[in-house]
């Protein structure tokens, strides 16, 4: 029997969501950036695996911030390079 731990349930892991295509386009035009300029996250990151995001998708991370209360951050899922 294996009980799988859902990392998103841990208090220290912030909320991860996959963004829709429209949201991503909005994000790009808001900051006038391309996907290359986004911060990255590996496809095998535990949180990415839980929400099932694919390489090329963008993830919204909402965390509680010391300074701002609620802070949003966005990351592009990329393939982990071999070594």
């Amino acid at each position, binding site marked *: 029997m294996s009980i799988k731990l859902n990392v998103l349930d841990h208090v220290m892991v912030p909320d991860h969501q996959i963004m829709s295509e429209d949201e991503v386009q909005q994000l790009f035009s808001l*900051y006038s950036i391309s996907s*290359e300029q*986004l*911060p990255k996250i590996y496809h095998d990151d535990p949180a990415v695996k839980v929400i099932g995001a694919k390489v090329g998708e963008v993830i919204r991370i909402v965390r509680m911030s010391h*300074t701002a*209360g609620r*802070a949003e951050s966005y990351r592009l899922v990329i393939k982990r*390079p071999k*070594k």
Partner: protein
Amino acid sequence: MPSPKRIGKIEFGLLSPKEIRTMSVRKIIWADTYDDDGFPYPQGLMDLNLGVIDPGLRCKTCDQKASECPGHFGHIELAKPVIHVGYTRLIRKLLRVTCRSCSRLLLSPEEIEKVVGTEDDLTGDVLSEKDIKKERLCPHCGEQQLKINFEKPTTFSEIFVDDGKKIEHKLTPADIRARLEKIPDEDLRHLGINPDVARPEWTVLTVLPVPPVTMRPSIILENGQRSEDDLTHKLVDIIRINQRFKENQDAGAPQLIIEDLWELLQYHVTTYLDNEVAGCPPARHRSGRPLKTLSQRLKGKDGRFRGSLSGKRVNFSARTVISPDPNLSVIEVGIPLAVANEMTIPVQANPFNIEELKQMVRYGPFRSSLTQPCGANYVIRPDKRRIRLAEGNLETVVEMIEPGWTVERQIRDGDIVLFNRQPSLHRMSIMAHRVKVMDGRTFRLNPAVCPPYNADFDGDEMNLHIPQTEEARAEAAILVAVEENILSPRFGGPIIGGIHDHVSGIFMLTNQLQWHTKEETLYLLKHIDIQHLPEPGKEENGVKYWSNKQVFSEILPKEMNMVFRASSCQNCETCKRETCERDAYVRIIDGRLESGTIDKKAIGAFDGQIVNRIIRQYGMKRAAEFIDDITHLSIRAIMMYGFSFGIDDEDLSKTEYGQIDEVLTSAVNDVQRRIKIYEDGQLEAMPGRTPEETLEMQIMQVLGKARDRTGEIAGRHLGLGNSAVVMAVSGARGSMLNLTQMAGCVGQQSVRGERIMRGYDDRTLPHYKKGDRGSDAHGFITHSYKSGLNPTEFFFHAIGGREGLVDTAVRTSQSGYLQRRMINALQDLKVGYDGTVRSTGGRIIQFRYGEDGTDPMKSSFGDPVDVKGIVESILKEEV
């Protein structure tokens, strides 16, 4: 300006013999440099084809003058190949991974695939020495492999076993080169080598490039003799041996001699490339000094990279010792006349200033006193030619000047300059000050600006830079000026403020209620810019008196309201507010100090509540003026009261000494009692601790309390009449603990937070019985610094003191490196207009700076809005 370019790729490779010959303009065969007439030998090391360094001669290659010719490479044909010391590691690796007969990789294609991956799915890994088993058979030709031995610096040999004996067979560079030549390109790619730019056999030199003379210039000594560069000396050695080698080779000399010469040639080439190789005696100059050869030119702190490329020297800068001058404003800097006369600012002549500039030129470079107006040192003509002003040419130059010329005038009072103290750890380490030309030989600064520079006056030196363009001066005035940097971006509070005597002085002035006569009041306010004295606070027998709080209120902005507690506040359970016997409840209503003492909390650097409030309400400029007023007023105050400290200030009375003795004796007895309980096995251990640890903790506690008790006893005797107490209470310097140690008892010495346990077996010193746990045997010092320590106490004190020294030494170096790495990582990030933090490539690091987009400098100690301060200043009471 050229537009910035993105670097596509960087290729690292080796110079091939072919390339070396192509770029060479001359084959060098003569070991000599100049003939008897001082003319370079053709095909010698100073051949005119290699570039010229003597003025007047022209380069034979490019026909340019000494100043324009960049120099050209030559080459030396080596009699036999020699190994390049920089690549011995690579050579060793290649010899070990390839077959000794067919020179192919000692791995089958399947084995290679395991590491490198298939054509379509490369792992990105390359083969290493570890992937190959030792002394195996070659999978391609079946040859038995031998162990390759490498001996520093450049000797390779094969080891094989014959009749149970190990036999070492030396490989000559020619053998090695032959082997490397045979390695197939495809195998090299698996090893991470690109054979197009770096064939391995190029690591064994057959031809040596001779650097241009411009990078090894000879200098002519005072006696007319030429002195050659270290590189030239080394090249002379190489050519000499190379020629001899060739002659011997042609004459068919015995193998032994050839080998000796080959080794000698290898030695010279090795030391020419790197004179600090392990296992190789460095080549020396005739005087015994080791030569500075190629590698030494690049390496280390003074090498080409750290010394010449990253480290830059600048003009228009000055450096000297700093000293304090409380009469200067914080925004000023005192500059010695000698420095001011050397430093200049270029001013372009136009119809409006030409008369003024002509007058400066008339004064020339001679300014002998502070009262004289500034002169000029140089004049620049519109064709960029410089004319140095000297006694003889002043009038002729004045006649010539017209609009379009530039005059380099000397700096004068009011000019803006950048002032810097290393290490420049934060942006306040460089600030712009206004010049004040002064006598003497040191830079002078107001002691209130010491904290941002972290400067003191025990011999510190500081640097000064003169901005040369209008833009640079504007930037200095708007961004870098002292008054723009009073707030620290680290915590959003003031970093400039009163220190030491400013705090002591203002404390003595404002503590409790005091009354001053008109003379005293005027003495205190002498340097403050006020038109009229306020109404006197009281009048007795026809004499008018002003209170000390009135005096201080004169420097406060008129409509200020704030309430806070001073440093001397003891945080009583119920605050007595205005009736506080320490006068620590500070209330400022409408710019009047109603009650309370002004001290470190109010005006000190890092704390400065009043300074902070003035910045928020009235701006940085008013705050700078306030700090100036504070320094002037507090210095006047401390001069009026007088302030000194001597050995007798640590004296206590007989009763106090008796009480201290009593406290210490009872503490020592208490410790003995507890040890007894422990030794009887009666001590109940605290949860999670052994009885031994429990005892140690109890002892530390008892002794710590005892020391504090002696401090209280001493403090009772020493009141605010004692200078050390004034300094400790006001927060100017020192603490009551320092005073306790001076007058009461030094207390327990510790190493890593524990009593001193190290030393001999079961005891710290041979003066004690083994297993003695008593207080004195483990570093408790019952004496005070005043009474003096006995020898054992002194020894323990040295142990405890050493720990502190080691800690600071380790901490500074570690935190320095930590900071350096962090700055290197963050230096090119910037906050965009949309609030994002981005790298130079436009990549987003943070979507909003600090997640809340707040400038920490403008925040209030970390919070975006200072709600409490705003409410207080409107309600005029504490909230």
